């Protein structure tokens, strides 16, 4: 494998990993508050469609991302109302949210099918320029702002969850909502906040795919990455920091596959497209159920409430 291919693989791993990381961070926050959201896929689709639509309409990719984040928050709050306010089954509500995302994104994105946008600008790191080889590196290793912010965001999420009072309350709700309530926390309010924040991240994740990566909208373009993000949460044992490693790994699988295809490797694209899903399944096997001990104790249970 030559240097260009390697640099390309690295660049596309980071780019594919970015949206996965944002989606996984959102899901970590939600699950730490005790709520499984299978609808990430739908929210990512809404983010992707709204991101392209808003970018075309305003002419500014950053506004596109902001609009996608807001749309993601709104979509997730519908889910939040159903599972928290109405105490509905989380798995069924999550799948319903996925359907909502399929439908809404298809309708929102319809007028923009085929539209190619300029997308989020790639910002080169100062100091990487100069020299012939470095020129190549600078072109390949210049990322958009969301990619640069992904890892700091993960660290910030870790800090908020594990070092702030709000995060302590949130995790307490995910472990034992009644005890959290007895300690003066408001479980349902915290869960609403967590899911709103999770929607924000999922919306950004979708927008990163369409506004920064493909720079176009196609129906169903997230192709199951929302589910990979959920698997990533299990893989990283509900830790935002481990999610960075997981996202790099999965981004790497995807990046390698894209680079091999671009380099004209003689392997069917269909077989290579299976890699991320099979890899996800595979990495969940070692450790198996032991991992569940890291899960929030009240995950998926409905807090009937005393309020």
């Amino acid at each position, binding site marked *: 494998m030559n240097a260009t291919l390697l640099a390309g693989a690295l660049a596309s791993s980071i780019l594919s990993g970015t949206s996965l990381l944002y989606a996984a961070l959102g899901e970590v926050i939600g699950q730490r508050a005790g709520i499984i959201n299978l609808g990430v896929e739908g929210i990512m689709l809404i983010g992707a469609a709204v991101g392209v639509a808003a970018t075309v309409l305003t002419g500014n990719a950053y506004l596109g991302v902001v609009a996608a984040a807001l749309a993601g928050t709104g979509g997730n709050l519908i889910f939040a*109302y159903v599972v928290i306010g109405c105490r509905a089954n989380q798995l069924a509500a999550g799948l319903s949210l996925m359907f909502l995302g399929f439908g809404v994104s*298809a309708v929102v994105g319809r007028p923009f099918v085929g539209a190619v946008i300029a997308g989020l600008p790639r910002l080169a790191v100062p100091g990487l320029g100069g020299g012939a080889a470095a020129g190549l590196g600078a072109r390949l290793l210049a990322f958009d702002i969301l990619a640069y912010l992904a890892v700091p965001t993960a660290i910030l999420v870790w800090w908020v969850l594990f070092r702030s009072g709000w995060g302590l309350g949130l995790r307490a709700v995910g472990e034992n909502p009644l005890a959290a309530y007895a300690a003066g926390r408001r479980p349902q309010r915290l869960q609403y906040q967590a899911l709103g924040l999770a929607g924000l991240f999922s919306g950004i994740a979708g927008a990163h795919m369409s506004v920064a990566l493909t720079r176009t909208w196609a129906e169903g373009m997230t192709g199951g990455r929302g*589910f990979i993000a959920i698997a990533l949460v299990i893989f990283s044992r509900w830790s935002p920091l481990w999610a960075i490693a997981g996202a790099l790994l999965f981004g790497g699988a995807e990046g390698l596959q894209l680079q091999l295809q671009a380099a004209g490797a003689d392997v069917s694209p269909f077989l290579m497209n299976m890699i991320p899903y099979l890899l996800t399944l595979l990495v969940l096997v070692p450790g*198996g159920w032991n991992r569940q001990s890291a899960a929030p104790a009240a995950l998926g249970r409905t807090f009937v409430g005393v309020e």
Partner: protein
Amino acid sequence: MQRDIAAIRRFAVMRAAMALRAALVTATGLVVFAALLTAAGKDPLRAYLGTLTYVFGNAYGFSELLVRMIPLMLTAIAVALPARIGLINVGGEGQLYMGAWLATAGELALSDLPAIVLLPILTVLGFIGGGLWALIPGILRAFRLVNETISTLLLNYVAPLIVSFFIFGPWRSPESASYPQSPAFVDAARLPTFFHTRVNAGFVYALACLVLYWLVLTRTRWGLEMRAIGGNPEAARRLGIPVLRYMVAVMFVAGGVAGLAGMAEVSAIQGRLVSELSPGYGFIGFLVAWLAGNSAAGIVLMSFLFAVISSIGDILQITQGLPFAVINILMAVILFIVLARRPYGRAAR
């Protein structure tokens, strides 16, 4: 005798109440959806009326509803059966594709057999294809390695890629250069259709599976043990019920039933293997089973309802230039209404 009549009457009243509730929820969903469409500058009333005249206006339109019910009923059983032992199978979509795939492999290898031999073989192959695909999450779950919800979801994205690999590669029909698909099935490999419609033997399969599902659960020792596992797996294990064996076997059978849907789709409807085999039947099947509370009669009712809903999607796509996926919004709205109405509702099992 008297008691039987009372029981039947109670059953009928219960079902009627269920149908009435479903109708009320659907009506609310339709109103909300209409408001959304109106806001988007579309004409929902025309679409609804168009659907009504198409679906209930003539026998053929109605028969298309029955055609659409086939994969919904079968994939719903594939969800309902594991749900009885507490397993969540969201992989009906992938299992459907693999059933279609193995049935096609059988057709390509055995196409010179007469229909009376070939069709049963293809049916069994469809069952095995879906079953083996569901066996992967079943085994991973039984050995406590991977949660079956996430593994079935992930495998949904792999199965269509396998199908695509074959129809773009080894099975690609030489006649269709532009649109990749497998060669057309021989006549002996086509499931019979009835009354000059597309309603096919798959409908019989679905009804037979529903009856078997009901019989096994209510009238056999297996059903009793399965309900015991669903109630409390630890207690069932201590009673000596082979819980792990049940998990693996039930996932195999469930996947097999979803595989039948794929087999019927290629053998009766498409007549060949194509890449766009299902517009998400497996996912809709999950919701059908959930709304039906996993009851056999409920599955028939809800499949019918979702068949009507997806007809609305066809009409909207043809007459108002909306993507077919718009129908997902209507489904989501209806589901959210149900979920919001039933606060302590049945779990998704």
